[in-house]
């Protein structure tokens, strides 16, 4: 049973994070933007777990735990907001949500 370098995991997580960022900028649908945030969080989690493994300390895992919890809370509130948004203006497209625009 041979070994997998931690760096592979880290690179993978970096790639996922980058993709998340791209998605965040690229997508226009509020919900999908939300998802891209979740994607970034996941990437970070992967990095955490990898580090935890490398330094074989459990703190990384605990952190993942917290990240997941916070993500859950965020999703709850965020989606509630999204629903409000959808009710108040018929579009989920963030570019149509521009009351702040001058």
């Amino acid at each position, binding site marked *: 049973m041979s*070994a*997998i*370098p*931690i*760096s*592979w*995991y880290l*690179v*993978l*997580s*970096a*790639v*996922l*994070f*980058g*993709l998340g*960022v*791209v*998605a965040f*900028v*690229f*997508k*226009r*649908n509020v*919900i999908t933007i*939300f*998802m891209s945030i*979740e*994607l970034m969080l*996941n990437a970070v*989690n*992967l990095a955490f*777990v*990898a580090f935890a*493994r*490398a*330094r*074989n300390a*459990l703190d990384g895992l*605990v952190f*993942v*735990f*917290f990240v*997941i*919890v*916070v*993500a*859950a*809370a*965020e*999703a*709850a*509130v965020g*989606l*509630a907001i999204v*629903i*409000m948004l959808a009710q108040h203006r018929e*579009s989920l*497209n963030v*570019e149509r949500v521009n009351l702040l625009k001058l």
Partner: protein
Amino acid sequence: MSVPIILFFVCALLAVAGAVLLILAREPIHSALALVLVMMALAVLYLLLGAPFVAAVQIIVYAGAIMVLFVFVIMLLNAGVEERTDFSKIAKWAGVPLGFFLLLLIAHFLARSSIGTAIATGAGAAAEQASTRELSVQLFRQYLFPFEATSILILIAILGALVLARKDE
């Protein structure tokens, strides 16, 4: 080629594919499914990293609860194909390339970083597995306060969601 390495590559591939799909898909549901795919792959990777508990939590909470919530909302709002408006030039011309640049940058340096080259033996080595017991001990001893804090956070989140979703009489 040994089992873990194959597994790793398969999962990594799936994850990246999922992420790309998330970007390319125009149906929100498809994006959601792609994200679920990513999460599954990550869960397997966690198993490889010898963190079965985190893997399970990942699936239960992320795939099983959060993403279901997303799907639910999408179905509720019946969110159709996203329209391709293009109001912000900067997002188009600067954002995406910069995002990729960031991606490559971080990847590059992580690959070169000292901790990156640390070797981890794959999953299956039972001794290497982070035991759930230790994890819980850590969580409830050392990280008790953050734990409580998050519980309060969740409570607040629930209340917030309720207030937002309530029909204003």
